[in-house]
């Protein structure tokens, strides 16, 4: 909290100095804390912000869940076979580098305009990141754990569920955080594609209207959602996972 306050103060000071005394920037080119608050207030007042956030969250959560499932399976596939590991993994890394926006034509072609399209963009934007995270975490599981479980008669499925999964968990969590960010970014591209409600759409219309305060307001909302998700999901999970292991 204190930290956020300090940031805010610094921002106001830079704004005041930069647009006023020093004349570095035009006041309309740089967001001001007050302007952003006003813009947020307006969007909250007429309900757009709630709606946009709710829509975006639903999309990103749904998309991320699909990515988790698909990405995990793919990750397991690559880590289970040396052949796939050598051939498929670098490819995934390449595909992951593609900007989400270049999937848009394909999304429209295959899924038309609408939620399915947006979901596709999210899924394709984060799945491979999930796979890479899973694959890497699996590969760094100390072999002694796997050996131990094997000698206790663990089958392939049990090995994954009871040993590899928990052993890889800390690494997986770290990777999933990044995948979550990828999902958000893909969401933005997806929402711009077919204009409906959504934070990405609000952001882009802010840009189209040259309203830097609205852009910044939406950015803050995205950051806030990110912070909350991190605190509620990732950080708390991580803390629990690491504490148990004495890390």
């Amino acid at each position: 909290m204190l930290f956020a306050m300090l940031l805010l103060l610094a921002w106001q000071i830079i704004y005041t100095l930069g647009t006023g005394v020093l004349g570095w920037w035009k006041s309309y080119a740089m967001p001001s804390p007050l302007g952003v608050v006003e813009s947020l207030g307006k969007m909250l007042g007429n309900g757009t912000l709630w709606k946009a956030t709710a829509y975006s969250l639903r999309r990103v959560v749904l998309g991320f869940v699909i990515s988790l499932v698909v990405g995990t399976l793919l990750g397991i596939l690559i880590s289970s076979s040396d052949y796939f590991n050598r051939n498929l993994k670098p490819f995934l890394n390449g595909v992951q580098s593609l900007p989400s926006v270049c999937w848009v034509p394909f999304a429209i072609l295959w899924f038309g305009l609408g939620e399915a399209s947006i979901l596709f963009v999210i899924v394709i934007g984060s799945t491979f990141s999930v796979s890479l995270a899973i694959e890497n975490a699996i590969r760094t599981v100390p072999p002694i754990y796997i050996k131990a479980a094997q000698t206790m008669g663990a089958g392939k499925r049990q090995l994954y569920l009871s040993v590899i999964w928990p052993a890889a968990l800390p690494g997986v969590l770290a990777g999933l955080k990044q995948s979550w960010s990828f999902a958000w970014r893909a969401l933005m591209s997806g929402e711009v594609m077919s204009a409906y409600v959504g934070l990405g759409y609000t952001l882009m219309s802010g840009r189209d209207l040259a309203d830097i305060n609205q852009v910044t307001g939406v950015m803050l909302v995205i950051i806030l959602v990110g912070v909350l998700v991190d605190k509620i999901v990732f950080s708390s999970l991580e803390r629990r996972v690491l504490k148990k292991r004495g890390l």
Partner: protein
Amino acid sequence: MALEIKNVSRTFEGSMKETLKDISLSVEQGEFICVVGPSGCGKSTLLNIIAGLDFPTDGEIFLDEKKITAPGADRVVMFQEHALFPWLNVMENVKFGMKMMGVPKEEQNRRAEHYLKMVQLWEFREYSVHEISGGMRQRTALARSLCLDGPVLLMDEPFSALDKQTTNKLRADLERIWEETGKTVIFVTHSVEEAVFLADRIVVLSDNPGCIKEIFQVGLPRPRRNDAVEFLEVRHNILSCVEREVEKFAKEEYDHEKMA
């Protein structure tokens, strides 16, 4: 189960020399075999190969006529380095193997309690692995492997981190369990006394390359007492055999040093 080790050799990639060379050994059903030898001679490697976790570069191993190619719950292993799962607590670690083998929940609890009490860790059952001492970890691993109740038990220096008194107790417990269940046990130790106390036969491995130097039949009646004259005599025989082995090894190193 009977175990047939046939001309097993093992050379690691990148290593200049053979770690195991031409090891052959027939172990009968219910036999208690101890393996002794200098540090680094290949005891753990041999155990790993029997467990199916490592493979021989030459030779084969048969378990009741079936060739060993993969690890399995018929050969329970207690590793030299405890190999407990850090994300489970003591009790969960002990129950892990039973879960894998589909032992019913109640039976799991019963056995876990029994063996945790035997290794004197019942009180600590809810501790995390990082919260218990080295010796306690070893005892947890022991409880875990005994719980599994497999027909073959492969143990790699299971008492190395324990004080004498605890060791004595657990050694006796192990002997009792073995007598009651008729398991086949391969037991690696660096204590000749321990070997004489427990083994039907003692395999002395030599180093460089690791091959069987001698196999001693310990004919002493059980329960054995380590202050009995016969005991001391057998111990002495084996010790001197092992000692020569170690000395040879030490001398080699020494020669190296002189040459360097």
